[in-house]
């Protein structure tokens, strides 16, 4: 049983690493606020997803619906109430929570593949509704945007009507762009990670793991498993809602594509790639996928020609033609290959790889310690 003290060490390291990310990520070209913020937001999404999938084993294939709900709610909060991001984030989480209660209550009547399909169906339904019937709320294909004529009741009451042009999002006067935007998300990530850590180490978390291991036994052990699953589902949905509303804080725009199944699939990939059910794994998955997406999707044929310039022309053309399929728009092909390799050779994700390597190193250092000792006794 891990000690409480160790967890505080984990928290301290995590906090320090998150807050100094602009420094240590700049050597690999990821030290700019846009990408950092993306890391933090998807980090929150994946941490939340892992609370459901990692602890209970219930694979939701429609988690992006909460991302979308969070975004729409945040933008509505900007439009109707105030440009302050705090209410936007809080309402985004709450609204996602409401949706999660509803979707979770219905989907959790089934388990395994049926649960996954139900969540997928709800997400696709929401996606289609956002494009059609709900256009007054979602603004359809254009996406929900700020306009000059938005009421912004609280801001109007505070400042009077003196707006020229679109206002920008703030946190009590601090503009949420660039590094301030990143740090706002970073603080949310740290809090989110802390809560996730507490859940993993709590009796509640242990019960969720037991449900994953043997749900039937749980019932005969005296637990009503349904409310446990629903609670985990709602917490997980609220994390996604938080992530969705954070997406809207630097760029106050919400579109239905955020709820598409590909977005739901992405968080599944991230979590499995990093290591399902581990605390840090999903974050590693996010880091890897978002970093390589950034690099690979920016590459084009010109860049490839430059990279392979040393090859003879005919070979260069062939290599570029093949590699070209894997970059730019074809980045998803690379992701697919990477994902297959991980699932086939490291089913526990990157975290399992790290565990294996550290086990191997420990084994070697033990051997190294034993070898001189054996020599010493042999010498006598």
């Amino acid at each position: 049983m891990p000690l409480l003290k160790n967890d505080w060490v984990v928290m301290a390291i995590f906090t320090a690493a998150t807050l100094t990310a602009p420094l240590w990520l700049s050597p690999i070209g990821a030290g700019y606020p846009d990408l950092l913020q993306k890391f933090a937001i998807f980090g929150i999404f994946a941490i939340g997803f892992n609370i459901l999938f990692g602890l209970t084993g219930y694979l939701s294939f429609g988690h992006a619906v909460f991302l979308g709900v969070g975004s729409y709610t945040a933008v509505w909060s900007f439009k109707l109430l105030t440009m302050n991001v705090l209410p936007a984030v809080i309402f985004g989480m709450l609204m996602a929570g409401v949706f999660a209660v509803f979707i979770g209550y219905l989907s959790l009547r089934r388990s395994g593949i049926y649960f996954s399909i139900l969540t997928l169906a709800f997400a696709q339904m929401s996606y289609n509704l956002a494009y059609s019937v709900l256009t007054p709320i979602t603004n359809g294909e254009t996406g929900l945007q700020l306009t000059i004529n938005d009421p912004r009741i609280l801001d109007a009451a505070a400042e009077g009507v003196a707006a020229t042009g679109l206002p920008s999002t703030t946190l009590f006067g601090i503009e949420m762009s660039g590094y301030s935007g990143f740090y706002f998300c970073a603080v949310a990530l740290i809090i989110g990670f802390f809560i996730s850590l507490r859940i993993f180490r709590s009796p509640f978390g242990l019960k969720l793991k037991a449900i994953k291991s043997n749900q039937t036994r749980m019932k005969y052990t005296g637990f009503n498993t349904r409310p446990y699953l629903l609670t985990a589902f709602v917490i997980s949905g609220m994390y996604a809602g938080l992530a969705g509303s954070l997406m809207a804080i630097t760029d106050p725009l919400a579109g239905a594509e955020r709820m598409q199944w590909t977005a739901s699939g992405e968080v599944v990939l991230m979590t499995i790639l990093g290591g399902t059910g581990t605390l840090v794994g999903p974050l590693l998955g996010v880091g890897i996928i978002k970093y390589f997406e950034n690099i690979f999707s920016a590459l084009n044929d010109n860049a490839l020609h430059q990279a392979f310039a040393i090859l003879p022309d005919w070979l260069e053309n062939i290599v570029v033609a093949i590699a070209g399929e894997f970059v730019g728009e074809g980045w998803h092909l690379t992701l697919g290959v990477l994902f297959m390799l991980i699932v086939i050779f490291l089913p526990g994700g990157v975290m399992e790889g790290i565990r294996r390597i550290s086990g191997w190193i420990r084994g070697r250092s033990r051997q190294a310690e034993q070898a001189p000792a054996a020599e010493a006794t042999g010498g006598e």
Partner: protein
Amino acid sequence: MSGNIVLRIKNVDKTFGGLHALGDINLEIEEGKTHAIIGPNGAGKSTLLNVCIGRLEPDTGTVEFEGKNMIGMKPHEINHAGMVRVFQTPEIFPDLSVLENVMVPALAKRDGVFKFNALRSMASNTDIEAEAVHVLKDLGLGEYIHHHAGSMSRGDKRRLELAMGLVQHPRLLLLDEPTAGMARHDTNRTIDLLKRIKERGMTKIIIEHDMHVVFSLADRISVLAQGRIIADGTPDEIRGNPKVQEAYLGGAEL
């Protein structure tokens, strides 16, 4: 009959399609006693246990536990009423550690059917942990507490399941063939253990094939054959009952 009746099974009938699995079962289990249910394969022993524990609903009849009808209650409600079952094939949490396997039922006892204690650290639940360790040591599993439960031997898994049942301090423990698949010395160890539990006054129902186990433990024996109770009495009465010898033991001497 003297003593309190803990469990009263009244006129229970159960059919599966054309098969009459249980026919007009009447049983009374006395407090503090170990009641063995024996019978040939397919006699309906496990069906009867499943009816008691809420896994199956009988066609007719009632199962009263401490005066309350259990029929129609959910498995977790029956557990909290104080009736706990130990399964025949080990039903454990294979992905958790041995200690965690016992802590989970201990938590059920403390937290009830649902409690949202997500921000409380497990490490501060020292009482739960101490209790689990105590029960595990009692069953000779002390050295395994940090082992992965799924990788234990079958005999150890069965003992672990017993620990999971005992940590809840049930008022009635239902044991489905507690020694099946165990080596002789493990069987003897389990008998000793169950005897010790009996001294503490826990009421038990045991389904068992091994006559050595039955006659070492039982205060009372009911014999089930083809879904009916054909004999009910003290071990001595059962031993001398010609009907039992014929139906169950093929005339062999006990």
